[in-house]
């Protein structure tokens, strides 16, 4: 059933009793051609593109909890394509282009809102680093602007310009960056996949992976054993656990990232802004709450929650940037499990086991990548070849010395 204002109108007349479920709730079949482990943003997007772009059938997505219960439901909704390394930005720009057409593509209003992402800088070296990044974007035709202090002040007059410990000197702006309603992305991809025959199986946890002579045979789940020809792993946060089931050890550590929302307010901040003198980034949702966050707590964790010192760090940075935040109230805090990789960049690659494909290592930047990750992972699974924007995301790049390290922090996951 197609969603539209007209369909709402006709359903209103019948008391909204005739809406069809957005997706079925099927029992798992004994075998599929392709199984995707992980019913989050990336897993569902992969299934969607496998079905839509590559017209494959007999696909299942296995999700251990409820649909979208992982990081797709917990992130701070930011989209941007402002990475600087040649192995990275073309991929994120592919994602941005997919975002731009997404709602019409999967007939679900994901509220893609390109209101701009502004990264503030406070010192000359920071400005130079942003210039390097901005020019890396521009050289490939991606929008970027370097703003001076006055231009930033015009956009955001209520930031601290006069009393700051680290005065704002300017910013790097990507106007096409912005936010997307995260739950809607999961639901849109789920509905779109289901509509094309993909079985989305919730409450189905993969317990072990069965292989024979170096090739995948199937998965043992909480709802029985399921045979598959190809297995795509997209269980960010738990990538190490799942990969270990196939005897694969990964360059990944799981870390907690906290995120927060304030009480709902009338418009207070228009776009997405990141502070350059402390870890803090903020945007305002369409419901009025300020959605914000900062750095990792720093310790390995699967608990999906953090502690007070990081809450303080984040808020201190926020108030340093916008003194008026002081009187606004934090409403809720939560956390997710991040797949922190050893160079801060993701992995989309085959593995040493035939038929097993890996999508992992997204650190805390996975949301913006959702469409391209799904598309490229689907491409890899369907064609056994990487999509051309994702060729640098090989698992063996660490062994061979081709790291994609945007922050320059090296083999210490919690610094990325």
């Amino acid at each position, binding site marked *: 059933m197609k969603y539209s204002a007209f369909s709402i109108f006709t359903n209103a007349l019948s008391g909204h009793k005739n809406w069809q479920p957005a997706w079925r709730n099927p029992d798992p079949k004994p075998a599929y051609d392709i199984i995707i482990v992980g019913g989050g943003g990336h897993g569902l997007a992969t299934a969607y593109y496998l079905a839509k772009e590559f017209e494959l059938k007999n696909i299942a997505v296995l999700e251990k909890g409820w649909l979208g219960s992982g990081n797709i439901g917990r992130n701070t909704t930011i989209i941007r394509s402002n990475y600087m390394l040649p192995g990275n930005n073309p991929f994120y720009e592919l994602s941005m282009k997919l975002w731009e057409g997404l709602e019409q593509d999967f007939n679900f209003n994901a509220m893609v809102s390109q209101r701009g992402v502004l990264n503030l800088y406070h010192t000359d070296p920071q400005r130079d680093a942003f210039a390097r990044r901005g020019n890396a974007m521009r050289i490939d035709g991606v929008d970027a602007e370097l703003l001076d202090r006055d231009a930033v002040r015009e956009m955001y007059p209520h930031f601290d310009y006069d009393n700051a410990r680290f005065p704002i000197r300017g910013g790097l702006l990507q106007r096409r960056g912005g936010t997307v309603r995260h739950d809607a992305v999961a639901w849109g991809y789920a509905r779109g996949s289901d509509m094309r025959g993909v079985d989305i199986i919730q409450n189905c946890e993969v317990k072990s992976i069965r292989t024979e002579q170096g090739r995948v045979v199937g998965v043992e789940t909480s709802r029985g054993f399921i045979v598959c020809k190809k297995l795509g792993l997209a269980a960010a946060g*738990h990538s*190490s*656990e799942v990969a*270990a089931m196939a005897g694969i*050890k*990964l*360059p*990944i*550590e*799981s870390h907690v990232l906290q995120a927060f929302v304030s009480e709902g307010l009338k418009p207070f901040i228009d776009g997405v802004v990141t502070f350059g003198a402390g870890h803090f980034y903020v945007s305002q949702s369409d419901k009025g709450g300020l959605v914000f966050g900062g750095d990792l707590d*720093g*310790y*390995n*964790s*699967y*608990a999906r929650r953090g*502690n007070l*010192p990081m809450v303080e760090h984040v808020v201190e940075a926020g108030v340093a940037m916008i003194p008026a935040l002081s009187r606004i109230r934090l409403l809720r805090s939560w956390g997710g499990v991040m797949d922190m990789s*050893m160079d801060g960049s993701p992995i989309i690659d085959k593995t040493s086991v035939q038929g097993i494909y890996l999508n992992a290592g997204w650190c805390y930047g996975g949301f913006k990548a959702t469409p391209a990750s799904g598309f490229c992972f689907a491409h890899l699974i369907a064609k056994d070849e990487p999509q051309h924007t994702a060729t640098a995301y090989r698992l063996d790049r*660490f*062994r061979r010395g081709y790291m994609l390290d945007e922050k320059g922090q090296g*083999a*210490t*996951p*919690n610094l990325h």
Partner: protein
Amino acid sequence: MLIPCPHCGIRPVEEFTFLGDAKPQRPQSNDPATMDQWFDYVYLRDNPRGLFDEYVHHSGGCRSWMVVTRNTETHEIKACVPARDYKKKQS
């Protein structure tokens, strides 16, 4: 989170910096044939959900490096020993 520093007593988490898995051991040889061991040491991680031995630095206190045994799912801390003692026990 409170960490029981063997020198300073129970101290709050903000006094500490975390480095990661303490189990991997730095290989002894520089023979190129040992590259896989070095790669494992620098890059590959078990990343367990459950008990985990991690390097922790009391950077805001006694400046000791320690190994904390902590459950990564519940954050419950089981032990905290000086890194040199942990490493001695390993070898």
